[in-house]
C-alpha cells in the first residue's frame, strides 16, 4: 500500500445498483502516482461505475478504494474529491453555470478557495486549455471541442492529483481530438482514461486495463494489450481498420 499523492489502490470492489444489477464484481487495481492508464472494455463492462467510485460519488457495496493511502469514506469525501477530478463524457452535464469562468470557479470555490487565488486558479486553468478569450461566454455558445476543454478546465482548477476521463474523444472532430490529446499530454497528474478509442489510448497511456462483466480481465503495457488481437476480440474490442500499434521506446 502506498501513501504517495496521486496513487490509487482498489481491492475487491463490488458494486450492486439498487435495482439488483451487479456492475462491479470484485475489481482489484493499483495505479502508481503519475501513471497514465487506459481503461478499456465493451459497453456495460462497469467502466463508468468504477470511475464514479474513485471520488466517492458511488460507495462500494463491499471492498475498498484508497486514494493516496486514504480510504474513500464519508469522512474523507471532501479530501478525496479535491484529489480526484472526474471529467464526464458529456460536457453539457459538467458545464452548468452561465459563463465558462463561473463554471471553472465553481469547483475550487467549493473547496474553500476565495478571492484573488480563485481568480488566479481560473486564469491558469483556462490558459492550460487555451480558452482564456472565451471566459465570459456561455458554454452553450462554444463548439464541441471547446466545451470538452472547458469541462477539463473546470476540473483542472481544483488542482487534482488524479484525473479520470470518461470517453474524452467521443464526438470530437479530428482536429479537436488532436488538440485535446496535446492538452492532456502536458498535464502532470495520474490519469485514468476510460475509452473505446484504442488509438487514443495508445497515444496517451503507458498501461491498459481491460474490464468485462465488472472485473479486470487484463492488465499490461498498452503495446502488449493492443497487440493481442485474440484478447481484444474476446472482449468486443478491435483496432480500427489500418491502425498498427506503434512501437514504444
Amino acid at each position: 500500500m502506498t501513501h504517495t499523492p496521486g496513487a490509487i489502490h482498489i481491492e475487491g470492489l463490488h458494486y450492486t445498483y439498487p435495482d439488483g444489477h451487479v456492475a462491479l464484481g470484485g475489481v482489484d487495481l493499483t495505479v502508481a502516482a503519475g501513471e497514465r492508464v487506459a481503461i478499456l472494455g465493451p459497453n456495460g463492462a462497469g467502466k463508468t461505475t468504477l470511475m464514479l467510485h474513485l471520488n466517492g460519488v458511488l460507495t462500494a457495496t463491499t471492498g475498498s478504494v484508497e486514494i493516496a493511502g486514504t480510504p474513500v469514506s464519508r469522512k474523507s469525501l471532501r479530501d478525496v474529491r479535491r484529489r480526484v477530478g472526474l471529467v464526464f463524457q458529456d460536457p453539457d452535464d459538467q458545464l452548468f453555470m452561465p459563463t465558462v469562468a463561473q463554471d471553472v470557479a465553481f469547483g475550487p470555490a467549493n473547496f474553500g478557495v476565495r478571492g484573488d487565488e480563485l481568480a488566479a486558479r481560473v486564469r491558469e486553468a483556462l490558459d492550460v486549455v487555451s480558452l482564456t478569450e472565451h471566459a465570459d461566454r456561455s458554454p452553450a455558445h462554444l463548439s464541441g471541442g471547446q466545451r470538452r476543454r472547458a469541462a477539463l478546465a473546470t476540473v483542472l482548477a481544483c488542482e487534482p492529483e488524479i484525473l479520470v476521463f470518461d470517453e474524452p474523444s467521443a464526438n470530437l472532430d479530428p482536429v479537436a481530438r488532436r488538440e485535446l490529446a496535446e492538452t492532456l499530454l502536458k498535464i502532470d497528474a495520474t490519469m485514468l482514461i476510460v475509452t473505446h478509442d484504442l488509438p487514443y489510448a495508445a497515444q496517451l497511456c503507458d498501461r491498459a486495463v481491460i474490464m468485462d462483466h465488472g472485473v479486470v480481465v487484463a492488465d499490461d503495457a498498452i503495446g502488449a494489450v493492443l497487440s493481442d488481437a485474440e484478447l481484444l476480440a474476446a472482449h468486443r474490442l478491435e483496432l480500427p481498420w489500418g491502425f498498427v500499434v506503434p512501437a514504444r521506446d
Partner: protein
Amino acid sequence: MGAGHAHPLYRDGHSPIHRAPAEVKIVCLVLFVLAVVATPRELFWPFGIYALIILIVWRVGQLPLRWILPRMLIEAPFLVLAVLLPFSEGGERVEVAGLHLSVSGLYAAWGIVIKGTLGVAASLTVAATTTARELPLALSRLGVPPMVTSMLTLMIRYIDVLTAEVSRMRMARVSRGDSPRALHQVGATAKSVGALFLRSYERGERVYLAMLSRGFDGKVPQLAVGVGSAAPASARQWVLTLLPAAAAVMVSVSAWVAR
C-alpha cells in the same frame, strides 16, 4: 462583455445603463412600476412624465426606438381586455363617434393601457441592458434564497440544451414522415414529451453527479470578483441607478397631492 448570440430581448452595449449593477436595476424597476401603478388614473400629466423618464433612460442606454418598440408588442394580448371595458362597464356614458361608451370603463381602459405599457417598457429596458448570467448573483444579493437562485442558474443554462434536444427529436420524427400538426399523430408528440421528460430527468442526475464530484455540498459558493461575478454595487451606483425610480416616486406623490 461579448455575449455572442444572446437572448432576443438583450441588446449588447456599453452604456452606463448596461454597466449599472443588475441588483440595483431590479430594485429600480420594481419601485418605478409600483410608483406608476399607484398613480391615480384620472390624471394624465404624471404618465407623460413617466414616459419621458423612460425615453431619457432609453437615450442614455442607447436603445433605439425602432429596436425596442416592436418588442413591446408582447403586451398586445393584454390590451384586448382593455378595449372591451368601455363597452361592458356601466354608469355614466358619453357618445364618441356614434358609440355609447361608459366613462368609468374608458378610465379603466386608459389605466390598464398606460400602466401596462409603462410597465412593459420599463421591464424591457432592464431586460435589454442586463444579461441572464448577471441575474442569479444579483438576486442572491437582494436576499433571494440560494435554492431559488440555484434553480434559476440551472434553468438559464439548460433551457437551451433542452430546446436543442426538442428540435432534434422533432426533426428525427419529421424525417420519418411524421407531421406534428396532424391530429391522429398526437400520440407520437405525447410520447416524445414523455421521452423528453425522462431524458431531462437523467440529465439532471448526471449534472448533479458532476457537481458532487467537484465538491458541491448543496450551496452554490460565492465566486470571486472578476470570475464572471461583478463587485457588489457601491453607494454611488445605488444613488445614480435609482434616479429614474426616485423621479417616478416623486411624480406619483405629487399626483396624489395635486388631486
